[in-house]
């Protein structure tokens, strides 16, 4: 009885009419908002992680404390993180708290991959560049970072997929995005909204994963030739 009863109270799982009626006004803006939240967070996190990662790769003693702090941030459950952030003066309820949290979650993966990418650059290559008369700055920007790029992009990929999922919870503190459809669906007992939000968020994560993987492969031409 339980299951049938529930489906009756909730109506059909998907009302296609609702989707077509609300596509332009509700669904598309939610998707755009979600993409904005995720992209802005990864961009800000990258701007923090690149210099920190370069620093930690240069001074290995800094690596342990940096990963300890960012690892701690990464462990804090998102709803708890939001709960703490909205009490901080200057942040409050809304997209700002969500972006701060999403940035915090990205740091560990991004910094780890920046350091791993730089560490993997062969010392001979750096020596050769130095022998050619390049300055340290030139070596960093035209030798080390380009060689580390595929590993850095791999980090961006993991961070982006993680963040797209966590961003849905941000809707609870008025961050907007696809999570709003899921929460509204729960409150109204309207499965169509839950499913639309969930499917789009999952699809977004998979599309981001696959396209960043393609970028990663393109940046690694030597790996492609080896496989062929």
């Amino acid at each position, binding site marked *: 009885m339980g299951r049938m009863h529930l489906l009756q109270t909730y109506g059909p*799982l998907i009302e296609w009419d609702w989707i077509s009626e609300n596509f332009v006004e509700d669904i598309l803006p939610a998707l755009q908002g979600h993409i904005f939240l995720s992209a802005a967070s990864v961009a800000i996190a990258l701007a923090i992680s690149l210099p920190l990662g370069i620093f930690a790769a240069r001074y290995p003693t800094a690596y342990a404390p940096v990963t300890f702090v960012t690892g701690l941030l990464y462990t804090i459950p998102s709803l708890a*993180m939001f709960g703490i952030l909205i009490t901080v003066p200057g942040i409050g309820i809304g997209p700002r708290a969500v972006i701060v949290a999403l940035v915090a979650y990205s740091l560990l993966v991004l910094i780890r991959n920046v350091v791993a990418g730089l560490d993997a650059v062969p010392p001979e290559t750096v020596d050769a560049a130095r022998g050619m008369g390049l300055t340290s700055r030139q070596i960093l920007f035209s030798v080390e970072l380009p060689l580390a790029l595929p590993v850095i992009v791999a980090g961006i990929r993991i961070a982006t997929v993680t963040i797209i999922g966590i961003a849905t919870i941000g809707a609870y503190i008025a961050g907007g995005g696809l999570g709003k459809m899921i929460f509204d669906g729960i409150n109204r007992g309207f499965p169509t909204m839950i499913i639309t939000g969930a499917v789009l968020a999952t699809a977004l994560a998979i599309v981001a994963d696959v396209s960043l993987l393609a970028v990663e492969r393109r940046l690694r031409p030597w790996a492609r030739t080896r496989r062929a």
Partner: protein
Amino acid sequence: MGEILDVTQRPNFPELLWTHVVLCVVSLLIAIAIAIPLALAVRDTPLGATIAINIGNVGRAVPSIAILALALPFLGYGFAPSLLALTLLAIPPILINASTGLREVSREVMDAARGMGLSETQIFSRIQLPIAMPVIFAGIRTSAVQVVASATLATFIGGGALGELIVEGLQRDDTAVLLAGSFTIALLAIAAELIFGGLERAFTPKGLHLARKKK
């Protein structure tokens, strides 16, 4: 600070904490009981392992709140739907890690064992499984931390647990309740990370520790 601690003295606090812990422990145990045998079953069939890993990857892309919310139209509100949703969430990381861990034990090592006259069962129990152990436990650790975090969301489908304090704090604009809930959940997640990190180390065979040090 005092106000935050007062919240932990409320009569319903132990109950919420208990619900949270039970949800996590039970769903994690069920997930282990499903994912590990599955990974073992497909360990010698590359296709099966690939399928298992890909199902795991897609499963990980589904947001946790979505899995909990989707339990609603099928199972309704309450503890049991939350438990089921959390179990579904906990399976992918364990499945992925157990499958890859077992598959990536190097062929040379297994061949060497075979050459020494070990039977297939012995190779599995003495070589393959111990070498894969740290990777398997890393998967369980990922799931454990994720389940502690997602159990917070159980409150949205009536599963109780510590998320209720966050919801109450927000609705009543009560910072002390909000922070008491948030900090307790954060500490619980950190505790899970430390406990399972310790287990991961404890289950790493001595030989692997030595091999890693040499690197």
